[in-house]
């Protein structure tokens, strides 16, 4: 074992500690990742021109990752005209709406639709910021009055988390989704026959159900946690005259 440890070529691994260290030292992540790429390339003896070429090629071929920039103008336009205010006002008319219920309902719909392959039905730019987060906040404001920023942030962060968890653990059930196809291709490449994409999708169901149970359980406790936070805030540093910004 000792000899094998010494014989192993560690140079290709150098990028990993660079990423971890750079992040721990709070350098800008763009810089950290670029430096990790440069050091890795240099450590394995790539020449500078090839390295630049790899950088440019990969950056250009992953441009579709920036497509959410197209959604923002529409959302910004609607927000200039009171979309978030309208979302809050609408929730105020529904007396039974609570933060936990709104988030739970969204979670179930999001996970179920993702399992059917309808991934675009949610998203942070198109649904969480303009609709879900303001509605979840408004439900808490209806119940408790104006809220301080930390509590509003907590509710908004939960709204974002709902979208992520529900989408991640729903999408793999859908057999045409990229992850399932990637696994299928990997198996075929490595000479393992007789596995259908359907099987892979099927075996995603137990984890998907576990995600549903775990996250809905956490959301069911969110309401009490918000109530506790508000009581604490009112006891300590709630402004007496001018209310917090709603």
């Amino acid at each position, binding site marked *: *074992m000792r000899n094998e440890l010494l014989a192993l070529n*560690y*140079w*290709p691994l150098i*990028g*990993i500690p660079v*990423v971890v260290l750079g992040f721990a030292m709070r350098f*800008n992540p*763009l810089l950290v*990742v670029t430096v*990790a*790429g440069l050091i*890795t390339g240099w450590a*394995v003896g790539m020449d500078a*021109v090839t390295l*630049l070429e*790899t950088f440019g090629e*990969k*950056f250009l071929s992953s*441009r*579709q990752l*920036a*497509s*959410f*920039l197209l*959604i923002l*103008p*529409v959302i910004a336009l*609607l927000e200039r*005209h*009171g979309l978030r*205010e309208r979302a809050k*006002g609408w929730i105020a008319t529904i007396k039974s709406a609570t933060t936990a219920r709104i988030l739970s309902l969204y979670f179930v719909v999001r996970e179920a639709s993702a399992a059917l392959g309808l*991934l*675009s*039905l949610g998203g942070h730019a198109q*649904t969480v*910021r303009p*609709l879900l*987060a303001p509605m979840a906040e408004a439900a808490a404001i209806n119940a408790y009055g104006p809220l301080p920023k930390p509590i509003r942030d907590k509710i*908004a*962060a939960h709204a*974002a988390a709902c979208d*992520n*968890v529900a989408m991640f653990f729903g999408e*793999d059930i859908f057999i045409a989704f*990229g*992850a399932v196809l990637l*696994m299928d291709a*990997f198996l075929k490449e*490595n000479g393992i026959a007789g*596995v259908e994409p359907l*099987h*892979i999708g*099927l*075996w*995603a169901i137990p*984890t998907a159900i*576990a*995600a549903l149970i775990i996250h809905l359980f956490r959301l069911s406790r969110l309401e009490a946690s918000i109530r506790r936070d508000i009581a604490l805030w009112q006891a300590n540093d709630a402004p007496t005259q001018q209310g917090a910004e709603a």
Partner: protein
Amino acid sequence: MSLISIDDIYLLIGLVVAILVILTLRDKQHPKRLTTALFWGLFGSLFLFGDLAVNTLGAKQAHQIAGTMVIGIALLAGMGRVSLGNYQETSPAEKTASAERLGNKLFLPALLIPLLTVAATLLLAGVSFGEVLLLDPKHQTLAALALACGVALLVGWRLTGDNPLKAVAGSRRLVDSIGWAAILPQMLAMLGGVFVVAQTGDSIKALVSLFVDPNNRFGLVVIYCMGMALFTMIMGNTFAAFPVMTAGIALPFLIEGQGASPAPLMAIGMYSGYCGTLMTPMAANFNIVPAALLDLDDKYQVIKVQIPTALALLTTNIFLMFFIVFD
């Protein structure tokens, strides 16, 4: 040929970014006006001129130029030369008044984006005018999204009277507050590319195999699941971790060594990676971008909220895998 091709979508993104750059340059009170404009200008020109450069200069030279520009982008961000500017916003009173006037009609364009994207993906795939397809067959969802955003913008224009240019101008504050996080996923794809060339996967495989006891089934399952989560946290992407960890641990030790069933092993292994995605700032588009979009004071708050669910699910996955894959 397709009417809405991926190249058109890149041009559209480039155009939006170009308008933002012009507005940044005209923002005279902007504390870092020129460098912020340069940052987004470099980024936007990769969308506007990327394909043109590949076609005229050849792939090799175009990629070298693009790579140099990417390093410029990283340097500008790394030296803190990119910041927020000043924005003309409507007052809360104006917003409330407008919300009352327009009522629930305001929801329409917002709901059109997800609904039209899904409808167009499902219904318009394969629709063509003569030889020309409407949506790029390789990027249907993306083409559908671009189409949906276009329609929603027109409906929003008609509804509010504010034209698309004003809409893009309004999005500048959102784009600026997202800042570098908007570019991180592409940078990580770039790092992944270098790792592939450097054969980092083989080294990880060799390293892991030194520390694995090939007879301890539970230990192997724990190492595979945790390895997927940890490597995903570093790479920001489960798809980058999956081939490395699966070829390094799952294939030789679990499938070949212990006769594990491949389908559930892959499925649960991939999901263990997703648990890592929930816990890392490297998965910027899921964890950091929303924190900026939602104006959270703590940009790690979404991750903090997700950690309990992620850890509970990782534990669940380990036990599920252990009890399911060996039968």
